[in-house]
């Protein structure tokens, strides 16, 4: 190593704290401890494969009708028509597009499920405790802004390529809005209502489940919607670590400069995004905005229960 003289005007050039090497050390540790992670990996791989198999097992037409019905239930007739059209368009893009979309949907579903499991409790905690909020906020900032390529390598070193790594990478990017908006939702609950609940002898748990969470639900669902959208925007990057699906089509098309194939994959992702976005946004609007009725009184379920009620 050549000897450097310390320069007061440019001190940074002569100081090397060795952060890069230190981080590389973590990578080395990760590689040597892969065995510890394997059982977990196998478990999650199993879950993802099962979800994917289930989605593939349903015939496209049945799946299309099912998703349209869900959209009708969650968001009303107009959204259902839009969702139906988007799905038909998705299927018509390419003979293989539907299957690829289901693979992507399986990855997104797994990521979002895990995001909810992790993000909801974290968000509630952050909503309740200022100290935890101030701790978690920079972590969330990091997760959202650090380039995916930075954590792609360590995750692959630790877990290997494949679906599980794809899901983890997706979670890192997609989790923050759910935590943030859950915290915001809990914090913006009308404090006088919480006080009233306390005054009538509710326990902290009852206050959370009977008052705070129900009142925060629209905000939390907005967070869920954002998490889903961000998960979808990660599918191309995830395909770099060998995740199949629509993202992989885009990646391969990019490598071959095949614009047509890229459009097929890209539009497929957009269609999927519109479908998931409209359904979750519909959930976010409370049933009471649609005429003070319970969810089972509207949509297709409402039709069926209505039939039974009349008999």
């Amino acid at each position: 190593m050549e000897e450097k003289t310390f320069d007061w005007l440019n001190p940074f050039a002569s100081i090397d704290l060795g952060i890069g090497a230190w981080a590389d050390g973590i990578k080395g540790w990760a590689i040597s401890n892969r065995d510890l992670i394997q059982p977990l990996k196998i478990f999650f791989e199993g879950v993802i494969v099962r979800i994917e198999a289930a989605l593939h097992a349903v015939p496209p037409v049945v799946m299309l009708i099912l998703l349209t019905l869900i959209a009708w239930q969650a968001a009303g007739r107009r959204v259902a028509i839009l969702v139906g059209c988007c799905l038909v368009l998705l299927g018509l893009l390419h003979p293989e597009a539907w299957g690829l979309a289901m693979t992507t949907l399986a990855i997104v579903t797994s990521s979002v499920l895990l995001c909810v499991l992790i993000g909801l409790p974290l968000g509630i905690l952050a909503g309740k405790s200022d100290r935890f909020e101030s701790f978690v906020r920079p972590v969330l900032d990091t997760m959202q802004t650090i380039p995916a390529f930075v954590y792609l390598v360590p995750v692959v070193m630790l877990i290997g390529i494949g679906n599980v790594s794809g899901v983890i990478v997706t979670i890192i990017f997609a989790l923050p809005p759910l935590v943030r908006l859950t915290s915001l939702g809990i914090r913006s609950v009308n404090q006088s209502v919480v006080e009233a609940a306390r005054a009538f002898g509710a326990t902290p748990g009852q206050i959370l489940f009977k008052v705070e969470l129900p009142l925060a639900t629209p905000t939390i669902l907005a967070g869920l919607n954002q998490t889903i959208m961000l998960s979808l925007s990660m599918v191309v990057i995830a395909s770099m670590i060998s995740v199949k699906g629509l993202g992989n089509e885009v990646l391969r098309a990019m490598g071959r400069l095949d614009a047509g194939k890229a459009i097929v994959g890209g539009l497929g992702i957009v269609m999927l995004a519109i479908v998931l976005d409209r359904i979750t946004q519909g959930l976010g609007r409370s049933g009471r905005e649609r005429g003070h009725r319970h969810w089972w009184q509207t949509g297709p379920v409402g039709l069926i229960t209505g039939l039974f009620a009349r008999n």
Partner: protein
Amino acid sequence: MTKSAREDVIRCEGIWKIFGERSREAMDAIRNQGLSKQLIREKYDCVIGVQNASFTVGRGEIFCIMGLSGSGKSTLIRHINRLIEPTAGSIIIEGQNVNAMNARDLRALRAERIGMVFQSMALMPHRTVQENVGFSLEVRGLADAQRAKIAQAIEAVDLTGWEKKYPDELSGGMQQRVGLARAIAADPTILLMDEPFSALDPLIRKQLQTTFMELSAELHKTTVFITHDLDEAIRIGDRIAIMKDGVLVQIGTPEQIVTEPADDYVAEFVAGISKLDLVTAARIMQPLAQYEAANGPQNISAWSVARPEDKLNTLVDLAVGSDSPIRIEAEGRTVGVVTRRALLRGIQGREEVGTSAMETA
């Protein structure tokens, strides 16, 4: 007369509430050095919310706390069910020290024995009227078992038929009736009313006051009622406490407050209050002997007669019917005379010098 027989349901002893991070130090400084409010704010960056408040509320009594906004009355009422912890002092409810209770006992106390009504109503927007009213029963796991109680409470405030509606479908007055029903649903002994009718328009407020007074006469709840409206306090309260800058300036019956204000602040408040239905004959009458000494012997049997506890309004009716003074009779004995002059002064709220019954009694 019943006051002495009444047991104290709520007893507050020397409650202090100081807001701020250094409230303990500030409290010690007040105790040991007698620092003023101003100095406390400068030295400790603390604000005094309630200053040495002591009072008792008897069973079935309606105790009004009257004060302007910022006087600390809402802070004070929240000490009773310990939504706010006092910096010093203790609150005793039916012999139990609320501040010594553990979390479980405190929740039981709040759910079973105290009902509260809020100025902001604080209804839960995602629950129907019925679910709101049944909340205190539900948190104890009793909502289903006590359907009848919920229905009864809803009926008591005239909202039968609205059970399945949501709060935002109701008018302000109806919402507050839901609040009232929620407070009485668990049949608590104590009602805490934090400016319940202040946010309503005058006509609805009057209606709700009437509803509340009817309910109160029927249910005999021990009530602490916060208001910034002296008319309301006089209309509703058995006793009134006037609060200013965190201090209870005066506690007394409406008549005492109006006729014997403790200081200029209270006097200014009560100046505009009509005395007609508050002040009694006993307060403005003079002894018969004194009257005869001044005006010579009188043929008192021809005069109109009233009782000592009759209000000025009644005396005015009598005075309109005849020109002679009014004879005040108790248990068949003449106890005093009310002249026109004394009556007019009484309505004004000023006492005639030398005619006060208090001075000669």
